[in-house]
């Protein structure tokens, strides 16, 4: 095959607009707009872009915050003014610009453009109050808002095409957010972050992915039969702790009572504690047949109730394959742990974790309940391949004892590897 000399012709200027758009979309917006001075053909190629992503890099760096803000506003306004054609995605992510009438006007302009994907992240300080035209984005499929205030008009019936909703640090009344969620009937993924003291009931018949992070007093998944993955990180305040003390309902049932299709459950910080309120070890009416992966972080192995939550989960997940648990215990109270005879007497002996292949325990302090739990797993997992134990960084002297105890446990699986991780990277 002979090698041809590269031709000196201009191929790129004659590519169809759809391909040019694919190329220009991979550039920062500023560079895309700069192509307008390449030649007469290039003058307006950028103006037909349908995926617009604005951020602080669109304007030259300057230390003067007011100037940066003004520049960004000018850039966006000018861009939108000269833009021609549909806009499918509009994303604005800035640390400089805070709430401003300009943003309202941009949203008004965009609400007529059948935008499908909207991301708005404005700066700290005065939070942006979403104008009513935001609720006129009828074709919206994906919405992400950071740091703003939402107050839908009474006539708002929901985003009927919305599939992905992500609200972070958003000021919104609890029943408003509930109505918002339930009115978006096609909603598949929901992320709520940094909400304060929220009591939430979620009704979303098509919801598959749920991510919650913040201070939640109460979460009830009332109508979420299609949920596939849940990730919750719960923070604690005194207010919430008090609420926990007074609560009489079973949080476990309220949260995990109606999720038969669940495949993945991830809980952080105080999640297990939240789930332990009102919990008992009775069998769940419908076991979690699809549940394959459970990850629970900061489980306190001194609290018997939290251990019950973990047990209830793994005993009702017959197809569980992977389990990751991190502890948060204090080894100094090791010898005084109550209910030490639980593992010998009350724990169900005939349970078998038929599919469990991988277990990873981190931040282990060596408290008796941790040992009891690991012993249970090792003794009842016939197909276990890896049991990885990482001691907590605070445990310095007891490591050898920990290891010795671990080695004694009977293993149901001949293939099981016991990995003791010495140095956490």
């Amino acid at each position, binding site marked *: 095959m002979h090698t041809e000399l590269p031709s000196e012709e201009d191929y790129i200027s004659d590519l*169809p607009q*759809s391909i040019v758009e694919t190329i220009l979309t991979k550039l920062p917006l500023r560079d895309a707009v700069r192509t307008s001075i*390449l030649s007469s053909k*290039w003058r307006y190629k950028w103006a037909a872009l349908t995926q617009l992503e604005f951020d602080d890099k669109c304007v030259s760096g300057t230390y003067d915050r007011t100037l940066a803000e003004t520049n960004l506003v000018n850039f966006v*306004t000018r861009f939108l*003014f000269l833009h021609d054609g549909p806009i499918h995605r509009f994303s604005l992510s800035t640390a400089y610009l805070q709430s401003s009438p300009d943003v309202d006007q941009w949203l008004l302009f965009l609400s007529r453009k059948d935008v499908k994907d909207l991301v708005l992240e404005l700066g700290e300080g005065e*939070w942006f109050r979403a104008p009513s035209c935001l609720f006129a984005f009828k074709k919206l499929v994906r919405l992400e808002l950071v740091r703003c205030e939402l107050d839908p008009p009474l006539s708002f019936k929901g985003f009927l095409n919305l599939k992905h909703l992500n609200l972070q640090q958003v000021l919104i009344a609890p029943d408003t957010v509930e109505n918002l969620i339930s009115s978006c009937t096609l909603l598949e993924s929901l992320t709520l972050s940094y909400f304060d003291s929220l009591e939430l009931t979620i009704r979303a018949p098509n919801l598959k992915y749920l991510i919650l992070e913040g201070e939640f007093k109460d979460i009830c998944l009332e109508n979420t039969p299609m949920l596939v993955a849940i990730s919750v990180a719960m923070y604690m305040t005194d207010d919430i702790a008090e609420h926990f003390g007074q609560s009489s309902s079973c949080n476990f049932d309220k949260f995990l009572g109606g999720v038969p299709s669940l495949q993945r459950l991830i809980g952080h910080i105080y999640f297990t504690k939240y789930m332990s309120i009102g919990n008992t070890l009775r069998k769940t009416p419908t076991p979690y047949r699809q549940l394959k992966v459970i990850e629970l972080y900061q489980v306190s192995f001194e609290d018997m109730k939290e251990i019950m939550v973990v047990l209830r989960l793994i005993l009702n997940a017959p197809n569980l394959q992977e389990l990751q648990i991190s502890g948060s215990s204090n080894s100094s109270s090791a010898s005084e742990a109550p209910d030490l005879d639980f593992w010998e007497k009350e724990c169900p002996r005939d349970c078998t974790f038929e599919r469990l292949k991988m277990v990873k325990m981190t931040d282990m302090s060596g408290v008796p309940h941790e040992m009891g739990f690991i012993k249970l797993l090792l003794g009842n997992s016939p197909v276990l391949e890896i049991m990885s134990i990482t001691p907590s960084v605070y445990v310095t002297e007891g490591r050898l004892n920990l290891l010795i105890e671990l080695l004694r446990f009977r293993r149901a699986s001949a293939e099981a590897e016991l990995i003791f991780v010495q140095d956490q990277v």
Partner: protein
Amino acid sequence: MAIIKPEMKSFIWLQTPDELIQQVEEEVAMFCPMICREVLRSGMGSSKNFAIKLPEQVTPPILGLILDYCRFHQVPGRSNKERKTFDEKFIRLDSNKLCELISAADSLKLRPLVDLTASALARMIEGKTAEQIRETFHIVDDLTEEEKLEPLKIRTNDPRVRLLNRLYARKRKELKARKNLKNVEVEEERVDDRSVDDLLLFINSGNEDSKGVKPTKNKKKNRRRKNNLKEPSSDIKNGNHKKETGSLSSSHNSEIEDCVSPSKLLKMLGSDFDFPEDDFDDDLDPALMEELDREVEEFARRLNSVWPERVQGIIPFGQSRSIASVSRN
């Protein structure tokens, strides 16, 4: 890979635009969605006489490249790292080859290759000066110096641009694009609603602090223009000049007009008066910059200079927003 006897291995017959026909292993060719569709839909490609006609962008050398790509990636067992290494080597081609490749991959609907090539081309554009880009891609600079300094005009009435937009929209199977065009015409009737909306918006959002005057939607400008006299406002404009960039000294009136040239955009915003076409240009100060962001500032200044008298007309005393500011940790 299972050992397949030569006579059992299937081939697909492809015909390149130069009428030459070649046969390609089935699993390699079927990696291209367009070929796959042709085979499944019409049963073509099974023999020499029924070879699948490839689009004109797929010349024999380009087809060779594409098949190399397909041959590597259709093997299921490869790791992500292997694929990435292959891609990085594969994409080391000159700019025009890349253009041919992206065009051909697009016609075959081979999206991963389109994305890969587009990224490579984007890397050649990002961060480079106009001169460097022109050199890389052999683009002829046919813009006159004046044209480069001009503010970009709204050319939505250019039929070529419109046609491209429509073709593009259809290509992406956006029925909504046609609705868009319909909506555009419908919006003319909604003039009255919008003015109330905007008033409310302005009243609600107010006109606060000293962040500088805010640029406004051109629609507002259209409405007020008829009522504004140029002379009294020029003082305000000059005042703003000094406040803002302070470096430009072009004439204002004509420039404001040419930015709102008659166009579909105007119709969409419900304005019902026509601006004279010949108000186009332009006695821009030749000392003016070439960079687009400077044009942006100039344009903004122009917009800003028309803002004050309009604000005074709408909001008597300037209300401030009342939003409880919440601090978050």
